């Protein structure tokens, strides 16, 4: 419906922003609180679980090229049911930036602007993110590309510098498992870091190579897993399980152990601030996809008014996530809902599309027989 063009790589980079931002802000905090030892087990389990909807999303995108989840729902279920069934997903896209920005604001307050109320920082992040979203999908993806060009080399340097503090013994045992994580809501809350592929479902109509999208979605999930694995090892190899699990943002604590370099007194802060870049663009991605969906429902020529309406509504609702624990819990319970809903919808679409195809074939067969 909207004439926008983005590449597969840009979708991949948006997913990468999800991983970088999630690892820095909330993922490891949730993960390390799910087990008493060996957090690698829930990490791999989470990746396997997340791979299911990722594969389903790849199939759906390939099956419906140049159409997004809103269009697919309308095509398979009709307009009213299509809207009804995708509305919770759109709501989640709009809701997620609030807790994530609140968590990001906590990070800045913790290490840099100690006297600034986190809510002010949260609103600034929200404003910037909405501003980028206001300029459209292409601007969001291009901004994200540019951010990541800065982020990746600096992250690699920082990680390299911090390896000297690592003691592999602190990361052991690797062959003994604490399976209690299956019963912990934090484990399911942590999964949202893998759900960046959800953006592709909303932007599939702007991608010209939907059939090949599986390479990016699955490839990025593996790369993201690798990034999470490296950061997890950095954390527990340095802080140990007992210390790391006592923090909500252990990667931040790990980075503050970096020793000063040359003229940088607080080099750790630089990296922490750099995590804000992917967070902003990833959230812009969520906002813009939500706005596009609403625009499609309402047949709006321009979805920018929806972004503005969202921004004003988000401002009004800011107090709901003002306490940090509210934001943390909100994200924790929203994430499994997000993943579960996507999986169910994708399964439903897949079944319906197969059934429709069979029905169409069976309709053709009698005609052929009659003709024959």
């Amino acid at each position, binding site marked *: 419906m909207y004439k926008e063009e983005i590449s597969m790589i840009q979708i991949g980079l948006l997913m990468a922003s999800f991983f970088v931002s999630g690892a820095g802000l909330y993922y490891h905090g949730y993960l390390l609180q799910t087990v*008493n*030892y*060996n957090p690698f087990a829930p990490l791999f389990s989470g990746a396997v679980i997340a791979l299911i909807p990722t594969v389903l999303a790849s199939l759906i995108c390939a099956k419906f090229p140049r159409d997004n989840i809103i269009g697919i729902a309308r095509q398979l279920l009709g307009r009213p049911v299509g809207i009804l069934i995708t509305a919770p997903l759109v709501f989640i896209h709009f809701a997620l930036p609030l807790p994530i920005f609140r968590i990001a604001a906590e990070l800045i*307050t*913790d*290490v840099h*602007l*100690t*006297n*600034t*109320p986190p809510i*002010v*920082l949260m*609103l*600034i992040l929200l*404003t*910037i993110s909405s*501003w980028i979203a*206001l300029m459209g999908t292409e601007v969001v993806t291009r901004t994200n590309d540019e951010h990541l060009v800065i982020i990746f080399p600096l992250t690699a340097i920082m990680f390299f510098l911090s390896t000297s503090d690592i*003691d592999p*013994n*602190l990361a*052991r*045992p690797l062959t*003994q498992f604490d399976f209690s994580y299956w019963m912990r809501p934090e484990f399911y809350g942590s999964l949202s870091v893998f759900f960046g592929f959800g953006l592709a479902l909303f932007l599939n109509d702007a991608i010209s190579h939907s059939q090949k999208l599986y390479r990016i979605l699955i490839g990025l999930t593996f790369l993201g897993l690798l990034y999470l694995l490296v950061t997890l090892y950095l954390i527990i190899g*340095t*802080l*140990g*399980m*007992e*210390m790391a699990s*006592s923090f909500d943002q252990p990667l931040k*604590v790990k980075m*503050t*152990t*970096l*020793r*000063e370099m040359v003229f940088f*007194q*607080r080099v750790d802060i630089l990296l922490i601030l750099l995590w804000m870049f992917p967070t902003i663009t990833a959230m812009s991605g969520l906002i813009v996809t939500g706005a596009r969906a609403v625009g499609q429902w309402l047949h709006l020529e321009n979805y920018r008014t929806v972004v*503005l309406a969202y*921004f004003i509504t988000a401002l009004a609702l800011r107090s709901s996530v003002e306490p940090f624990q509210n934001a943390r819990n909100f994200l924790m319970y929203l994430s499994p809902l997000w993943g579960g809903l996507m999986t169910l919808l994708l399964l439903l679409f897949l079944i319906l599309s197969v059934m429709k195809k069979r029905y169409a074939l069976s309709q053709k067969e009698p005609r052929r027989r009659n003709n024959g």
Partner: protein
Amino acid sequence: MGRILVLCLLVGILTGCYDQSPIERRALVMVIGFDKGEEKAVAIIPDIHNPKQSDANTQVGPQATAGPAILAPRLEGDTIEDAIESGKKRLPRILDFGLTGAIVISERAARDGIFPFLSWSLFQPTVRNNAFVMVTPSDLQSLFTEKAKTVEGTQGGNVIVSQLVSDTKSAGIARVHLWEAYRTYLDRTGCITTPYIRLVDGKVSYDGAAVFHYDKMVGRVDSKETALMMMVLVERTPYLYTFHFDSPDGGGQKTDPQTKGQANRRNDKSSNVTLRVQTVKRTYQVERVGPKQYSVIIKVDMDGMLSDANPPQVRYSTEDFEAMGEQATEAMHRDLEALMNKTQKQMGADVFHIGRYVRPIDIEEWRSMDWHEVFPTIPVEFEVKVRILGATR
């Protein structure tokens, strides 16, 4: 719409306003001192550097208005926050811990437990997690002010920090960061050791390391023991080790035929020699021998050369070097056993962090036991091998 957006974006400027604090309203704390209070529970002694007296101050005013170079007020309170708040009555400044490089805890406070100080510092947003932690028996106010100086005139707490930052190699200093001490306390896979510093005749000196059991200081190891401990623990080199060498050919004073007629030059082979260890390879062999019972062998292999400090006129043969290696091995084995006996049996402290190797063997058992209580009952053996490759000249 554009105006609304611009207005919204201007909110960003507010962050500067919230955190804005002029430099003259700030007291820049270079080192934090913690002590037991005389009248209240705790005392914090911030080492505050006066920017007016800084070498970087290019706008020098009248000397009378400059004040002392370093301020180290003693602020007491029922809690650390209370102490800081009470200090505002005497020093109406914001204590800025952003430049804090070290945390010095008095010995008497350390013997009562340092965890409250570590915990407060770690969760204080502006204190760097990589600040150093150390213990002193000296008066903290004296240690931080002009009463403590180095040879070239650096004074106060800066002495301590600059020394620790620049000297990363010395085996004799048990450098520990705030986050390391905090982690060690929490995971209990070893004991906390910190540099032990004291003020002697106006000079700050390192006098071994303070050893902790849980978070309470229980004793001290001297500089030689600290160096041995750090060499094994973190394979820190170069490590200088001095021992007595008895030459296999009897040593003594022999006259070199080539020096006949010249002044009577000494040629003592049997003497104290200093070995410069260049490479250390340490491995722990930990085995579970029963419920909550473990046996430990610490293997230490090292290569080194005789240091420049040895008398250069003495000519050692290959046999001498071999014998020297054997004698160094024996001497180091003896010293390590003595150190282990002192720390394990007398202090109950796992200074070699053996717990880190025990923990992964059976993590459930580890979680059910208190390593600090089990460790003193564990047999620990050393297998030492010293190879002397020659002399540095």
